[in-house]
């Protein structure tokens, strides 16, 4: 393994960190079953809400091919990726601090960013499974349209979204390293994104200046792309603006967030607060 290229070595570590989290999650057997039924209840709640609010005016504001139920279900399900990205790096750092493994992880040959990236894989995989369950319940019971969806396109939008959101998640973890708790990075991005990103309503209903502001947050591109791929049956070419927007966020945010994280980590090694919480 010492002779393996660095990239392969890192992939093996990431896979093992995923297996660690999967093994821990598997040891709590009841949680998974609860997850399936929670998704059912939430899907049902949105279905009945959509029947209540659906009107010709709302229908005109929605993208082609979408009813309010499918629009909101995609919005809720994929907005959760942003929540996971913002919380997963924080959570794995906090967990390592609390269970006492942080110091032992930090004296290994693996850098903390790789450990955090590996620790985020399982939450993202679980989120994907949860999203699939949401959509499956929606399709089985409430007429969520699956036919004609561009799944490859949706997968590409999702990949680009995870990269863009992870930059924000690493920024959030940097804050946590220095200030320990009460994370305003998390709060600000989630609050702004839920208001402006088009989770429950199309951004076209916002005042014009807020529509411009919505273009400055990645979740807008993510939800637009996802809805276009799944509900609007958009081709890869048509999805390109959303994917390009998300990749641009990733290109800007990832290096900045890694640099800030490295600074924060060094700072805690100077102040001696690395393992404090």
């Amino acid at each position, binding site marked *: *393994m*010492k002779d*393996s290229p660095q990239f392969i*070595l890192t992939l*093996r*570590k990431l896979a*093992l*960190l995923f297996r*660690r989290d999967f*093994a*821990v999650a598997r*040891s*709590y057997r009841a949680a998974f079953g609860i997850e399936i039924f929670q998704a059912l209840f939430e899907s049902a709640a949105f279905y009945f809400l959509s029947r209540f609010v659906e009107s010709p005016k709302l229908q005109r504001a929605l993208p082609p091919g979408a009813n309010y139920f499918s629009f909101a279900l995609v919005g809720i399900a994929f907005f959760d990726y942003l929540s996971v990205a913002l919380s997963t790096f924080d959570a794995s750092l906090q967990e390592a601090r609390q*269970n*006492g*493994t942080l*110091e*032992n*992880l*930090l*004296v*290994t*040959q*693996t850098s903390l960013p790789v*450990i955090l990236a590996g620790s985020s894989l399982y939450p993202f995989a679980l989120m994907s499974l949860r999203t699939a369950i949401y959509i499956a319940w929606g399709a089985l019971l409430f007429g969520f349209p699956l036919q004609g969806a561009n799944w490859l396109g949706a997968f590409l939008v999702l990949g680009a979204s995870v990269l863009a959101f992870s930059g924000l998640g690493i920024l959030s973890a940097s804050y946590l390293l*220095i*200030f320990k708790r009460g994370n305003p990075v998390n709060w600000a991005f989630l609050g702004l994104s839920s208001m402006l990103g088009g989770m429950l309503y199309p951004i076209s209903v916002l005042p014009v200046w807020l529509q411009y502001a919505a273009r400055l947050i990645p979740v807008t591109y993510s939800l637009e792309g996802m809805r276009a791929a799944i509900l609007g049956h958009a081709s890869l070419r048509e999805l390109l603006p959303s994917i390009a927007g998300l990749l641009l966020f990733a290109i800007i945010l990832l290096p900045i967030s890694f640099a800030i994280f490295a600074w924060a980590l*060094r700072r805690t*090694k*100077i*102040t*001696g607060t*690395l393992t404090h919480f």
Partner: protein
Amino acid sequence: MKNSALSLENVEKYFPPAASGWGALLRPVFRLTVPALRGISLEVMPGEVLAVVGANGAGKSTLLRILTTLLIPTRGRAQVCGFDVAREPAKVRLRIGYHTGGDACFYSRLTARENLVLFAVLNNISEAEASKRIEEITGPFGLGELLDRQVRTLSTGNIHRLGLARAMLHRPAVLVLDEPTRSLDPLAAAEFRRFLLRDIVGARGTTMIFASHMLAEVEQLAGRIAVLDSGLMLACDNLAGLKSATGAETLEESLETLTRRASRETS
């Protein structure tokens, strides 16, 4: 200096003052003004066992954390096997094994084996090689039959052995132990010490530096003893040297004499 396993040259470490309430909120970044280590210099040769003793807050854990790259010294230079802890931390980490006396430092719902494989792979050891080493190392540790049990079901003594096995998996040249027997009962602690002396230092020739409050343990394990008080190193010698320098008959009396002298000099 070139051949030493550990070397510290005038190492100083300062922390920011503890802040809470409005002070912490209004001024989140403080200057480093609280001394934890003041001008520590020492060398440890390969195969040597050095104990670090001193009262709570003397700077023992700070010293060990600097050596393990968990803290960056404010001034001075610390090296492990010739590599600088601040500038070449990855090379240092390859050469040290670190174990603290705390018993909550594993993934409790994973088995002992799964934990060891995880940390081995994070130390760039392949899973196949890790499995081989785990069998090799856990035999003498008396952990063989416990490897496939979840860590939460193991006794504190066995978790300690597991911690030491983890620290030894990548065959480090230097073992750094912070109060290694802190939460062990007297019998388990005695067995643990015998194991350290016989299998780790005796058979493998591993250099060891450890902090402890248990003077019997220090006498049994250490070739030399470094005495810290309020971040200053008051003495670093073998047991006989400490006793003769202080005119004391026991290690405890030596420590009392040294700290009394130090407080007289500072006042």
